[in-house]
């Protein structure tokens, strides 16, 4: 399976995302924001970072970059697309996911090992989890406050489009503690925490068992491989 990772000017975690893809056993394909070519990939990751310097709004210019024409068409045709942090902001700006992400309510950058509860385990990127499962994924952002109008919030809550919720601490003022969303079809998922930073013992978040031993993030990448098998 080939998983493309798009590099935008200002992407930071594209190499980490590629590494996570390979660690899960898939082939990572580097995609370039200025191209109109997905190079035959089966799934796409929009990585974290500060694309285009976060000018205008986080993710706003990246959402209108050349390759997004193909990414949006592929997403609407059912291809799995995962947006991590800045990638989540790009998905929202591209209208592939509802709502918006604004500056954290406390005004500060936050970096922590964040506990999450899995709310939807039937998406292309979460089918390896179980509903209600508690996982720990590193979070690092200044503009992760999820907001949406009341009517849409009721709809996405009612239709199971909340994929992840913050546990213990709401780190940024997100409505309903929302950490991540899926689209109605379940192929597009976006979240503020960084699963690609929790894939290998020794380099992940701390757990009660051992320092840096958390690997909950790898399940995102094994899930998408499983969903590709199921679709084949």
């Amino acid at each position, binding site marked *: 399976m080939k998983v493309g990772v798009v590099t935008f000017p200002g992407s930071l975690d594209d190499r980490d995302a590629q590494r996570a893809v390979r660690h899960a056993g898939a082939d990572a394909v580097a995609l370039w924001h200025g191209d109109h070519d997905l190079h035959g990939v089966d799934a796409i990751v929009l990585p974290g970072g500060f694309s285009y310097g976060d000018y*205008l*709004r986080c993710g*706003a210019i990246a959402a*209108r970059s050349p390759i997004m024409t193909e990414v949006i068409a592929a997403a609407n045709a059912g291809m799995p697309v995962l947006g991590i942090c800045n990638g989540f902001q790009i998905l*929202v*700006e591209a209208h592939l996911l*509802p*709502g*918006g992400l*604004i*500056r*954290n*309510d*406390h*005004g500060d950058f936050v970096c922590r090992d964040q506990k999450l509860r899995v709310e939807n385990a039937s998406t292309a990127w979460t089918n390896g989890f179980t509903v209600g499962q508690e996982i720990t994924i590193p979070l690092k952002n200044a503009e992760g*406050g999820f*907001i*949406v*109008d009341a009517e849409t919030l009721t709809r996405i809550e009612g239709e199971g489009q909340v994929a992840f919720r913050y546990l213990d601490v709401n780190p940024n*003022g997100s409505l309903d503690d929302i950490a991540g969303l899926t689209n109605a079809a379940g192929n597009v998922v976006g979240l503020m925490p960084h699963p690609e930073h929790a894939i290998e013992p020794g380099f992940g978040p701390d757990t009660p068992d051992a320092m840096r031993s958390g690997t909950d993030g790898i399940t995102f990448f094994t899930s998408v491989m499983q969903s590709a098998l199921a679709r084949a």
Partner: protein
Amino acid sequence: MPTIVVEVMPKAELLDPAGKAVAGALGRLGIPTFSAVRIGKRFELTVDGEVTEAVMAEAQQLADDMLSNSVIEDVVRVYVLEGATSGAGA
């Protein structure tokens, strides 16, 4: 050359953490006159040529589609800058 100004503000009902931070600083500076601060954006669009109705419509469209995000912001004003005194200079 004519300049069209687009003003965008965070929606009134939404939290504006940046504005709140400035308002907090005013309190610490002992300035009680201003009770709240909200921070928005001002875009200056330079037009090569005359500002026709079609150009204004295009500016409004751009303001709605790209310069603002209607989930979190409102376009409050789109107008032609009189007197050509844009921040960018001549």
